[in-house]
């Protein structure tokens, strides 16, 4: 960790955190007014709110998140492989083919099971 990296990182992150504080501007300059309709969930102009926003959603979203997690981990394993592929040679390539084939088996299983059919 060089001092250069720490200094530029700190200044950049500081700026990135500071810029959103322009939000405060509206709190200072903006008008204020109350009203019952303003404090209700927005329903395209209907003030009598129908139902609440707390229903449960399809288990498919959960499956999607799990799939994302698993494939993300696989992708993360591939970055070091890709970078050092030239040194690893044919052997390294075969390793990754085995890995990808296992991945592909999983993907085909998901597709055959109809997990990603949104109907």
């Amino acid at each position, binding site marked *: *960790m060089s*001092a250069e990296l*720490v200094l530029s990182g700190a200044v950049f992150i500081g700026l990135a955190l500071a810029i959103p504080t322009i939000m405060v501007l509206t709190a200072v300059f903006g008008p204020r007014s109350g009203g019952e309709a303003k404090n209700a969930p927005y329903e395209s102009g209907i003030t009598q709110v129908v139902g609440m*926003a*707390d*229903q*449960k*959603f399809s*288990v*498919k*979203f*959960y*499956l999607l*998140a*799990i*799939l*994302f*997690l*698993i494939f*993300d*981990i*696989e992708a*993360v*394993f591939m*970055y*070091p*492989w*890709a*970078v*050092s592929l030239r*040194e*690893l040679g044919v052997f*390294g390539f075969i*390793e990754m083919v*085995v*890995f990808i084939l*296992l*991945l592909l*088996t*999983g993907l085909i*299983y*998901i597709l055959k*099971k*109809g*997990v990603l*059919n949104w*109907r």
Partner: protein
Amino acid sequence: MLATYLFFGLALLAVLGALGLILFKHPMNGAMSFVVTLISLAGLYALLSAKLIFAIQLIVYAGAIMSLILFIIMFLNIQERDLPIDSNRWFYLAGGIIVVAPIAGLMIKIAKSLPEEHPELIDGFGDVKTVGHLLFTEWLLPFEIVSILLLVALVGAVVLAGKRGVN
């Protein structure tokens, strides 16, 4: 010197985040404080020049796993009134501390037995390339086992979700 200050700052954040995780009642608060812990841990890895681990910590733990958890909190739409009333919270907490205490003692012992002087880092330590080379030559078998493990996890997730009816 700078590294020492950074270490203490990040370590403090990590511990505070972890405390938040177990003390907050609402799952969203817990999850968000856990994110703080995970990001501070990534910072600690960066201080140790483990660049690949730093990136993986951010991508997999702080990115993928936490967005999975937030996603679940979001679509289950857990509200304050859905939460169980756990009157035994402090009891469980004390039990947890008792279970973890020996491990903590062991860790302190290990930390004390570490050598005083700083070893020289080998060239390219923690680089993506170096780690990749090691992973795919010396640690080949664990790597391939990981792929099978991921496959099993995937099938397991589908089967478990399928019990309640995927369609």
